[in-house]
């Protein structure tokens, strides 16, 4: 079946099996491999993207369910080579190591700040509960998000 949607501002289309997960449509059919797959139970959040401006795990829905939506992936975050402020914060706070959870983490964190522009450390931790990282112990991820919020002083971090 033909599935069309807007991805990172561009109209995209591909002919896929009806059962195709959105994340595989994005990765395998559109070739946008920045969105990663870390589990098969919608637990890890590595595949987090934005659908119509809200974060969603792209492994939890079929591509067909996202027809006609406006999707943003990690590839759509930087602007002409300039990192998005959240990406910049992750870089400055060493919020990534192997980088595999990072795209999903950045997408989830961006969405979190949209809903709550001035979160406490506890709110950041609760807000990122659906995104797993095995490298950082979350310390510098939390620091990155607080920094992006201009709120690095209430983190209790060094």
């Amino acid at each position: 079946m033909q599935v069309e949607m807007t991805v990172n501002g561009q109209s995209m289309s591909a002919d896929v099996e009806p059962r195709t997960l959105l994340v595989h449509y994005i990765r395998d059919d559109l070739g946008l491999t920045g969105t990663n797959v870390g589990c098969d139970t919608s637990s890890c959040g590595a595949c987090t993207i934005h659908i119509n401006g809200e974060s969603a795990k792209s492994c939890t829905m079929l591509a067909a369910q996202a027809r006609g939506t406006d999707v943003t992936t990690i590839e759509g975050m930087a602007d002409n080579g300039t990192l998005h402020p959240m990406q910049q914060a992750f870089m400055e706070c060493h919020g990534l190591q192997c980088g595999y959870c990072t795209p999903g983490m950045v997408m989830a964190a961006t969405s979190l700040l949209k809903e709550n522009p001035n979160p406490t450390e506890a709110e950041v931790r609760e807000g990122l509960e659906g995104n797993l990282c095995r490298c950082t112990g979350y310390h510098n991820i939390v620091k990155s998000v607080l920094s992006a919020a201009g709120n690095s002083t209430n983190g209790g971090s060094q």
Partner: protein
Amino acid sequence: MTATESAPANVVGTPRLRKEDPKLLTGEGKYVDDIHVPGELWMGMVRSPHAHAKISSIETSAAAEMDGVHAVYTGAQLADMGLWIAPLPCAWPVTDDMVNPPHFPVATEAAHHVGDIVAVVLADSRYGAVDAAELVDVEYEVLPAVASIAEARDGSATAHHDLDSNKAFHWPLMPDPDALEAAFASATHVVKGEFVQQRLIPAAMEPRGVLAIPSPAGGDVTLYSATQVPHILKVMIAATTGLPEAKLRIIAPSVGGGFGAKLNVNPDELLAVTLANKLGRAVRWTESRSEAAFSTHQGRGQLQTIEIAADESGKIAGVRVHIDADMGAYMMLITPGVPLLGSFLYTGVYDVPAFGFTCDGYFTNLTPTDAYRGAGRPEASYAIERAMDMLAAKVGVGPDEIRRRNYLGGGGPFENLETASTLVFDSGNYGPSMDAALEMAGYADLRAEQQRRRDAGESKQMGIGLCTYVEICGLAPSRALGGLNYGAGGWEHAVVRFLPTGKVEVVTGSTPHGQGHETSWSMIVADKLGIDPDDVQVLHSDTAISPLGLDTYGSRSLAVGGVAVAMACDKVIEKAKLIAAHQMEANADDLEFAGGAFTVKGSPESTMPIQAIAFGAFTAHNLPDGMEPNLQEQVTFDPPNFAFPFGTHVAVVEVDEDTGDVSLMDYTAIDDCGTQINPLIVEGQVHGGIVQGVAQALWEEASYDADGNCKNPSFLDYLVPSAAEVPSMKLGSTTTPSTSNPLGVKGVGEAGTIGSAAAVINAVCDALSPYGVTDIAMPATPARVWKTIQQAKGGQS
């Protein structure tokens, strides 16, 4: 800490931002599953649902007839195709008589763990391979399964039906048995701890995956693998398949974490290479997360018994340890060696006059075990640090005091000190580490708050746990590995080359997968050569670009590979100096090198930048007679000794007595990894390591039923912690340079994990000590803690 972006002189020791990050932050980094070639076939694995079973029959026709399916192979068919000439390798046969049942990529007669591969399908799509694998119909004759170490010891069933026993080996480290016996005979205090190191699923966020691309006419095969060890993999694939080593190219592209789980030689890697070569088409596979509990090795899996003999004051006279270690169903690359890596560290940071260690390895019908972050050393640290708290209680002193009374070197600085476990510790200074940790944690205030809660009878009690760990890094002096029967050396290789334009390329045999080698190696080179770190490009993880290397594991990269880079820079400077002397018509002894330029001593106006010398070496118009063109040098560094990082961790937990819930309130760590190259990266490594150790203490366990089924293979049930479960951490450091290498570096990749599990469980036991609780098994789940409290209360009344 404030990170800097610019390139000041002397960048080593500054928290410099990582050059790896922009690619990874934008989705530009390519992991194996991101890379595709036309005509590729997807492998699907048919896996045994039984832990131990004979294969009666395999019906493949339904799968083979499915649209989009290219081929289906059973183990017997693959064996007949002659794709391999030897079983999967175990590089560490720890004893001459170690039992090692043959392990081929696909089982032919019997499956020995749930998930053992019994057939393989090749299909033209990701989903098609999974569908086809489900259509393969296998009939089994189920055999009794050995589902735990206890059952393996009991021996009423054997994990391999043609073996008489489940015991794989007995390995002793008994430097002086008489002295050990005498120490226990004359001791005032003897404490004994029996601990379970539960099995853990490593769970790197990127699942493992492979893509093998053949060249039918040329006869070579390129394998992309999510591996920590492309160099080792290349040798082992050649040795296992008979394919010419020089025709193999292994590439580890961006790799999403490893933690030891990606240092093996796996069935899927061998299948992809051999089938791609046979069929002349690219073959790929990516494990699903739930599959990873069966397709990737697990960690830990030990029963430990540790005894400490001490005098009246708590001064240690001897330490005696026995381990029963769960190999799982097969010996993987270093499965039997993992407990041995810990064996030397059961004396901890203490002055132990007499020591003895024995280990028995057992087969079970469970997923094979192998290295997981720390590999033997977290287990050792856990046992000795738990037992030290038991000794403190018995002697009647605090956990800090019992440690101070026993520190090696009296708690002061030392170098090159031989321990009872026959190692020579490079350097240490344990007292100040404890002092700094207690001060940063606010130890006195914590104890006061703990007492207040106890006096008030609050339901949420507080526990404070200490751990002073030491670990072995810098793997490894090749001769020492030879003495342990390990099948390879422990050196590392580096090339440093100036390009004609004055930029520098570094080739390293280390294989990063999140550790930031590109950044750290650039910093080392920048300071050595007096150039901007952004002018350094670090090449790695591709055997065609970096043909010599022994890869990344065991916190070895910096202490061996980074040192090789530094030494290669020294050789570059030596050669450049000869060229400079020749071109400046000066005596080489009269030249000094600083700030990236050679200057004639006493004549600061007579100077020549190293980039100009590099260009001169490239044109080769005016070199000393007989000198080879180009400015490039290589070094293979074989360390003279291991390195021994250490530190003190303080965990503070709150235990809800009504629910048994344990929450980590605060965590302080003072780590000493010798000289730090990039403190930003050091702290990141420690953060992540700590949480992995905390996770073992409180949440994670690969849990098996009596039939050998893993009950929690997915992330729904296997509790990798999220940000919500852990607090921010307080980190500090001391710096005691290593004497094992010229940089003074020690390694930090595993330190956090090695210090944290013991600290957390010591804290939980401390919280429950008023009830007489002296131990609690990992993971200290709410159910387990609640039950322990109820039993203790019942026992009191």
